[in-house]
């Protein structure tokens, strides 16, 4: 890969990277901090009154989801965070060919003694590296937020039974509010499976839009197709989870490969299926890829898209800049 092209690509993406970094850091910190504002015990009462059907929209059970670990993990599934990660992938990926073509700078770059594949790989490499840094920033911010956040907990006063370890809570009395550090319950290491899954998804978006960009000459069209794909995939997942008869749709959406809560849950439980390619999902009654398999498949699709993009770019005509 050409160092000058990599430097140029970093320079071109730096403003967007700075914006996405700031957005992700601020959002992640705020999201984790918010978790500490609400006592988990209150959610338990809420679960009891929710209809059972709500459970189908999550890959894990509600009781785990409302725990501190579950609620912090849900940060990785927030639309705001996903859109920011996808924004980086889609905007930088679309710039690889059709973006440079639109600005008219591709011609002058390709007039230099470098292979077209080098131009493509340099751009994709920087976009993937940017995606990696962004996901690590999310993780780092989660770690910092966990370290700093205090949780407000309310407990009932209790009477300890002499000579035993048992204590009887006095629920008729006013609860006592106390502050504990979130780090006493959570450790940032617990979230690594979700972070890996997030990176694999962002790599997919970079690869997909780079491929679309290699086929197209207009960036606005590349962006339109990529954003359209994002929403169709999201709808397929929603449809697949909502109705039993449409469950097969889950096999056609890329978002079914992105399940950070499930990945963190399985890892935390020490479940053997965490490392397997396939697993039986009892909740949805279907065979699906295991966490490891989902990540591998996302990376394989991304690699295939990058290779296909390079092949198309190498053999296509480069129209004159307008």
């Amino acid at each position, binding site marked *: 890969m*050409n*160092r*000058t*092209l990599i430097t*140029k690509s970093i*320079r*071109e993406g730096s403003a967007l990277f700075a914006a996405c970094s700031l957005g992700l850091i601020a959002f992640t910190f705020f999201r984790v901090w918010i978790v500490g504002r609400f006592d988990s015990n209150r959610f338990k009462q809420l679960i009891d009154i929710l209809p059972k059907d709500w459970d189908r929209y999550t890959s894990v059970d509600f009781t785990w989801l409302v725990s501190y670990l579950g609620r912090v993990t849900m940060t990785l599934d927030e639309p705001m965070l996903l859109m920011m990660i996808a924004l980086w992938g889609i905007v930088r990926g679309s710039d690889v060919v059709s973006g440079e073509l639109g*600005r*008219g*700078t591709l*011609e*002058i770059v*390709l*007039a*230099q*003694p*470098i*292979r*077209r594949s080098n131009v493509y790989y340099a751009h994709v490499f920087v976009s993937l590296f940017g995606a990696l840094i962004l996901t690590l920033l999310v993780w780092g911010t989660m770690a910092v937020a966990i370290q700093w956040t205090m949780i407000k907990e309310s407990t009932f006063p209790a009477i300890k039974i002499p000579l035993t370890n048992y204590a009887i809570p006095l629920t008729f009395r006013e609860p006592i509010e106390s502050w504990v550090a979130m780090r006493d319950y959570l450790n940032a290491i617990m979230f690594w499976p979700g972070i890996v899954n997030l990176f694999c998804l962002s790599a997919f978006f970079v690869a997909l839009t780079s491929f679309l960009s290699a086929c197209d000459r207009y960036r606005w069209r590349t962006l339109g197709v990529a954003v359209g794909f994002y929403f169709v995939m999201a709808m397929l997942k929603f449809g697949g989870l909502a109705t039993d008869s449409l469950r097969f749709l889950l096999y056609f959406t890329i978002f079914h490969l992105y399940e950070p809560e499930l990945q963190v849950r399985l890892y935390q439980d020490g479940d053997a299926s965490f490392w397997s390619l396939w697993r039986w999902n009892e909740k949805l009654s279907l065979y699906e890829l295991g966490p490891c398999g989902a990540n591998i498949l996302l990376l394989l699709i991304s690699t295939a898209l990058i290779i296909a993009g390079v092949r198309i770019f190498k*053999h296509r*005509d*480069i129209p*004159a*800049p307008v």
Partner: protein
Amino acid sequence: MIHTDGLSKQFGSFVALVPCTLNVPRGEVFGLLGPNGAGKSTLIRLLMGFLQPTAGSAHVNNFDIVRQTVNVKSSVSYLPSSPKLFRTMSGHSVLRFFARIRRDGDLPRALQIAKRLDLNLRPWVAFMSTGMRQKLAIAATFSVRAPLLILDEPTENLDPTVRRIVADLVREARADGQSVLFSSHVLSEVEEVADRVGILRSGQLVHEQSVSSIRRTHKIHATIQGSLPPIDDNLTPIVTIEFQSDGLVRLNVAGELAPVLKWLAAANLTDMHVEPVGLSAVYERFHHVAGTLPS
């Protein structure tokens, strides 16, 4: 330096370049002429590997333009028509980029040319005028001592002073042994710097001629009383005579003028004037000018 053999390009049913066979020897400045849409840029873009040929083959510096694209580009320094440069870079950064991306890049030489063009390198490209951007691209292109320079409309948007400098740079490149493919609409410029010209019409290379032979072609207009003296055998191939009404005579001379004038000295001519034919007259033979039909 450039050799094309039946090179052609078709976009669907539209033929952008009819099979074209062209040879540009090492050290020659070749002027490529033709109106918009004649196929000049298509030919250049094929040579640069931006377009895949529909048929035929081409070699630049003995490298195949399809299979050895990197070698071809190592042999070429290319100035596109209305060059688009990186808008968020300063002029200096752009020159540094081009100097670094090529092994034969030469930043001090690029800076020297920029200075010669009186170009301020501090502003971002986005804030440069069209002429400044053109100068920047010229500095980047001429800084490379590649065996071949391909210049597509190099003097577009430039003032007469800078046009003169560009012509000087082309002459210096030729003196250094570089070949130049010079595409332009400005006939006087091409005539000034080119050794040979090629004229394209509707995607077809319709004419090739050396500029020296064009320069040797003259028209002589005069009024004659009596008849012309017998013409020497050695002048017959280069002189054509047209008698017009009222004793007017026009001679087309495609060669050395001196022996013809010596021959005409014996004739009783008045109001004689000699005018060079020039490239524009050759060009007009193939393209519409001011509503006239091509001959």
